[in-house]
């Protein structure tokens, strides 16, 4: 008994001593002319005294800002830097824990520099991502989060993540959730807790990877996302064949949707009784990106009816049941259609039907791979793009690419075209030496209307100076009467002599537009994916 009392007395003495020391330190600091930290008084703190009162450079000005502002500043820091502020001073010790934003990225958590392009998962021999992330979670002590982002692709502990997500959802203020998870080995995917589907605060939801979604059916109490505006689902797993439809039906105010549909989504479910329906019937939707698996496209049915849609991107094959309707407000479409190997007449009809709602767009971007399927619909009439003012072809091409027909065809079908752009990369350099075949532009009896009266800009990135490319440029320069700008960016891999030769040839081409300026760019190695 006596021993214990003595121990507690010693402890108390120790506490009092350290408290005294802290006060003395602060007093010394104050005597040096440092402003004391003020408690949070959002909106009421005076800004007068900071810059105008004294030119004294030694004032700890930042610590006089209210807590809420310091916390807001910390939310702009990468996680590591934010946690490290705990050591600055006693005022800063716990501020990082109050930041309602948490970004845990396995690639960047341990990096010391602010890298914009994270490399592969950094393996730090001393620390594991699991330990660091768990530590952060514990220290934060369940302070509510409004934004949680987790990128964990190597040995993700799904049970732990499930707990974190569940805890976060239960706090009730989550607005943005972004999970990018891959679990190595045969372990089951991370199961999203049902509470997710009852979140009334969620505005943005992004899920990719080994994640299992089991949205409760609409009939079982009103489970909708009343606030959800952004939904991005990439390659996840669904618990039922109708899970996608259920999920989409629960988003009444959705504005941006990105969906990837492939066979692996339904792994382990066996065959569906009927087709898997993906019905996008959302009156508020403004942007839509669909990646549609071509492999088993007969198993799926895609139906899109979105009257407010302004931007549409589609990559995939056209199964029998791909229906696109009611897109009166569409401004831009980005299309990459996989070819049907059987080259059937039926497929040509499907392409034609698919293109019909796109005919009113102002801007169109087409992947050049398999773009020639757009030439086939001739049998069903020639679709005219009456409103098209900007057309771009993008992607990887080969020197023996025979889809130049499409470029010519589109010029004829877009009478009001103002901007023609090609953003290409050469697929395989070894083709250079084997390239013997010469393709020529088709002889046309008339000059396309857009060239005579509308085309003002021609942009060609990835120009390699081959026969037909030169022909195209020569043709446009010759016929485009109102052309103002032609910008050519040469393939960076060409030798400088070849580039010089190309430049010279281009400058010698006849131009029918007197105001035309030709811009020639030597091109530089672009290590990052070009953006669309």
């Amino acid at each position: 008994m006596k021993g214990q009392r003595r121990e507690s007395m010693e402890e108390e003495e120790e506490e009092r001593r350290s408290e005294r020391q802290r006060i003395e330190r602060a007093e010394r600091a104050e005597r040096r002319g440092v402003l004391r930290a003020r408690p949070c008084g959002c909106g009421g703190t005076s800004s007068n005294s900071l810059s105008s009162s004294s030119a004294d450079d030694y004032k700890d000005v930042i610590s006089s800002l209210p807590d809420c502002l310091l916390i807001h500043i910390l939310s702009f820091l990468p996680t590591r830097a934010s946690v490290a502020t705990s050591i600055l001073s006693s005022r800063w010790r716990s501020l990082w824990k109050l930041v309602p934003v948490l970004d845990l990225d396995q690639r960047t958590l341990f990096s010391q520099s602010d890298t914009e392009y994270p490399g592969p998962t950094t393996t730090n021999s001393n620390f594991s991502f699991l330990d660091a992330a768990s530590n952060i979670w514990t220290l934060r002590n369940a302070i509510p989060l409004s934004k949680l982002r987790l990128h964990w692709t190597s040995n993700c502990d799904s049970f732990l993540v499930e707990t974190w997500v569940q805890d976060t959802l239960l706090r009730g203020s989550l607005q943005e959730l972004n999970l990018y998870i891959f679990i190595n080995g045969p372990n089951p995917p991370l199961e999203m807790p049902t509470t997710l589907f009852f979140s009334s605060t969620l505005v943005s939801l992004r899920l990719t990877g080994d994640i299992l979604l089991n949205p409760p059916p609409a009939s079982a109490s009103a489970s909708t996302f009343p606030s959800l505006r952004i939904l991005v689902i990439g390659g996840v797993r669904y618990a039922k064949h109708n899970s996608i439809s259920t999920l989409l039906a629960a988003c009444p105010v959705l504005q941006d949707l990105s969906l990837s549909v492939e066979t692996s989504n339904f792994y382990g479910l066996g065959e569906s009784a009927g087709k898997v329906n993906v019905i996008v019937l959302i009156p508020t939707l403004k942007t839509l990106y669909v990646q549609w698996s071509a492999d088993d496209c007969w198993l799926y049915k895609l139906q899109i009816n979105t009257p407010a849609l302004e931007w549409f991107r589609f990559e995939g094959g056209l199964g029998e049941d791909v229906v696109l309707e009611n897109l009166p407000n569409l401004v831009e479409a980005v299309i990459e259609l996989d070819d049907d190997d059987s080259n059937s007449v039926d497929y040509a009809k499907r392409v034609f039907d698919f293109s019909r709602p796109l005919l009113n767009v102002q801007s169109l971007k087409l992947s050049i791979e398999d773009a020639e399927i757009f030439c086939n619909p001739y049998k069903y009439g020639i679709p005219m793009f009456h409103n098209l003012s900007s057309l771009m072809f993008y992607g990887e091409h080969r020197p023996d690419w025979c889809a130049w027909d499409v470029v010519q065809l589109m010029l004829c079908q877009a009478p009001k075209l103002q901007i023609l752009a090609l953003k290409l990369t050469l697929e395989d350099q070894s083709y250079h030496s084997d390239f013997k075949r010469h393709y020529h532009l088709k002889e046309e009896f008339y000059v396309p209307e857009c060239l005579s009266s509308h085309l003002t800009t021609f942009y060609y990135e990835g120009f390699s100076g081959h026969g037909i490319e030169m022909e195209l440029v020569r043709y446009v320069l010759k016929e485009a009467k109102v052309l103002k700008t032609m910008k050519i960016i040469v393939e960076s891999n060409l030798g400088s002599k070849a580039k010089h030769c190309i430049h010279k040839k281009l400058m010698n081409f006849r131009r029918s537009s007197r105001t035309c300026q030709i811009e020639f760019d030597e091109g530089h190695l672009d290590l990052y994916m070009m953006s669309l």
Partner: protein
Amino acid sequence: MALELKSSDNKIFEVEELVAVQSETIKSLVEDGCADNVIPLPNVDSKTLELVLDWCKNHVDMKLDEEKLKEYEDKFIEVDQAVLYDLLLAANYLNIKDLLNRACQKVADMLKGKTPEQIRETLNIVNDFSPEEEEEIRKENLWAFEE
């Protein structure tokens, strides 16, 4: 429609309503019909208010030119610390979200890539930890402090 704003040092600023309502605080006053007379802003001095109004005006003028606006913002925020914190406080008080975020981003940029000692020096923060306490904090999140 013009509004009159009065800074803490009694200087009156006349501004277009469209410019002034970039501030959510002023916007609510206008919507509630309390903006007929001069609006007093006791928490913002004239020097800061002038800068803030310049920000607001340019955001109305350059609304459609993203590139030009970004150029302006980058130049605008190149101010010394004291002015930066005044802007922060004013943006917070007047509830101007984009100015607040830009200013916070600027402060965060000042902290990035620096060691704690360097941060303390830049911001003139006094270290009031004992060596034992500092060691304790370091141990709590060792991974965040490894050089």
